[in-house]
């Protein structure tokens, strides 16, 4: 199952052409949408093949690193409008609970009545890959409602303009639209040029980091932009611990989700990519080690085990990872 799909495809094409001698020379069957996709990948591998192209994974497919951003971009542009409907179907509405818990456990916001007047008011929060605003709106709601904090602001950064457009549209229905507390910028998480170093109190990324071409670069950028004492928090799909549950979960992922994607959104391939990218994401402990390697201090006590930097949700279907930038840095 983990063999690169390109190898499988060329194997089946060889089968096709050998059979064709029976019926005379014929053009191999090729559907229009697939031939454009094939042409794209062939074009890239031909260009970079000579200098030893660096490859990465796109779901179970192996592609050149340069093309990953475009391929992921195409997926999210395609799903942008029905993103929430699809999330609801795929996670049976549980993703809302995960996001609520994520934000509550971060407890953003500074109560102006209890903080000393010398401290700068309000937090500066950066929400990465937060295009449609799910997390940003929850963060602002929590700060405003629980802590009476009217100054905490959130910058939503996403590489995909369609997701950002969807987020801007939704922000019009929140009370934050023209308050200056919500800001949308289009940028690549691996290169946050618009964000100055040591300026962010809280960096959040929910269900975004598994799509990045270089997760470690993104984590290092997070380290750079966070203030000393700032928190890095990541909500992402992870590995299910219980074997029986995992068997059921995997079958649901690889069978039902692409099917639902086809019926509801008319796009099987994007959802196939999504479930494959979940499969490819590192485990809880591996990801925690990546965070630690970037220089973050991991909360909780050792040794390995839940609670040391990560927290499972729904038996490991999703996990919250946290790290803190050390004060001395």
């Amino acid at each position, binding site marked *: 199952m983990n063999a690169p799909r390109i190898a499988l*495809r060329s194997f*089946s094409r060889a089968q096709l052409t050998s059979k064709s001698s029976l019926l005379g020379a014929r053009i191999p*069957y090729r*559907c229009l949408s697939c*031939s454009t996709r094939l042409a794209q990948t062939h074009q890239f591998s031909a260009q970079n093949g000579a200098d030893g192209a660096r490859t990465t994974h796109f779901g179970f497919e192996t592609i050149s690193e340069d093309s990953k951003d475009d391929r992921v971009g195409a997926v999210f542009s395609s799903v942008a409008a029905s993103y929430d409907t699809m999330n609801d179907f795929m996670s049976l509405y549980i993703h809302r609970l995960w996001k609520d818990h994520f934000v509550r456990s971060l407890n953003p916001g500074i109560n102006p009545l209890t903080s000393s007047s010398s401290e700068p008011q309000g937090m500066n929060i950066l929400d990465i890959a937060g295009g449609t605003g799910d997390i940003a709106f929850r963060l602002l709601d929590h700060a405003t409602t629980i802590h009476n904090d009217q100054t905490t602001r959130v910058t939503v950064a996403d590489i995909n303009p369609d997701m950002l457009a969807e987020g801007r549209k939704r922000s019009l229905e929140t009370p934050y639209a023209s308050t200056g507390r919500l800001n949308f910028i289009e940028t690549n998480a691996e290169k946050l040029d618009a964000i100055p170093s040591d300026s962010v109190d809280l960096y959040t990324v929910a269900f975004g980091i598994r799509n990045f071409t270089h997760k470690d670069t993104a984590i290092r950028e997070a380290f750079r932009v966070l203030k000393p004492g700032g928190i890095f928090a990541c909500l992402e799909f992870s590995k299910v611990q219980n074997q029986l549950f995992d068997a059921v979960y995997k079958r649901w992922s690889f*069978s039902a989700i*692409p099917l639902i994607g086809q*019926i509801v959104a*008319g796009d099987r391939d994007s959802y196939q990519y999504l479930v494959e990218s979940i499969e490819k994401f590192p485990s809880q402990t591996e990801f925690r080690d990546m965070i630690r390697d970037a220089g973050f201090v991991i909360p909780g006590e050792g040794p390995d085990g839940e609670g040391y930097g990560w927290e499972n949700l729904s038996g490991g279907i999703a996990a919250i990872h946290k790290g803190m930038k050390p004060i001395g840095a």
Partner: protein
Amino acid sequence: MGGPLTHSTLRSVSTSQAHRPFSVLNRPPPNYPGHVPLTSIERLALAIGSAIGSIRDPHRGDLIAALAEATAKPYFITRLRNAMLLDPTGRRILKDRPRITSQTLNLEKLRQLPEGSVGRTYVKWLDREGVTPDTRSAVRYIDDEEEAYVMQRYRECHDFYHALTSLPIVREGEIALKAFEFANTALPMTGLSLAALATLKRGERKRFWEVYGPWAWENGSRSKEVINVYWEERLEDSVEDVRRELGIEAPPDLREIRRREREERRKAKEREKAAKGAIV
């Protein structure tokens, strides 16, 4: 329904790609680009889901396509492929594997062909509906790649069937055409889409039961298989000639009937308004 098809022919010609049980975590490699092998449960779920989805939103052509693919096996798509193998033109089509796209068909040239020719009528339907030949989805869920081609060919020829039967692209015309296709190709999706009769107005439904349904059944089942027409070679022939060859008689002009009905309704409304005005 089509030409003579004996049991022994079926057995000898059908592929030996027996249905291999596999799990969703361990799918066999694709047989053609875009192929997604489905298990029986998935195929059933796709059939049910796409049936419900296409009733709720008839504009989702991709769901109707998925329904066709999910219900074509076993037997029906194989029967259609075998019908092609029994006919010399059908065999040529299977060998050449022509595709109908905006690249392979020169639409500009078709627009300049004489009235009443297949090409001109086809382009007129496309232009009226504002679509191109590229809007058809690619076949993905049929395992045998030759059968997948047959399904793709059927899908791409649909607009030619409109030209052949001169049924308009309104819902009533589409349903009548689906009835014709059901009688001719026996694909289950065409029969299932007759459920859309429930969405027609009463007068349209009556017309179907009285005129177009019987026409579709008699002509579809009596005539030769329309899948065997090599459309790319018949573009300059007149539609009448192709109809005569296949043994299809033209149905009553539905566009004309509907236009006359609209006119009568409009006149009746005006008379009513005038009468009301006179009373006041």
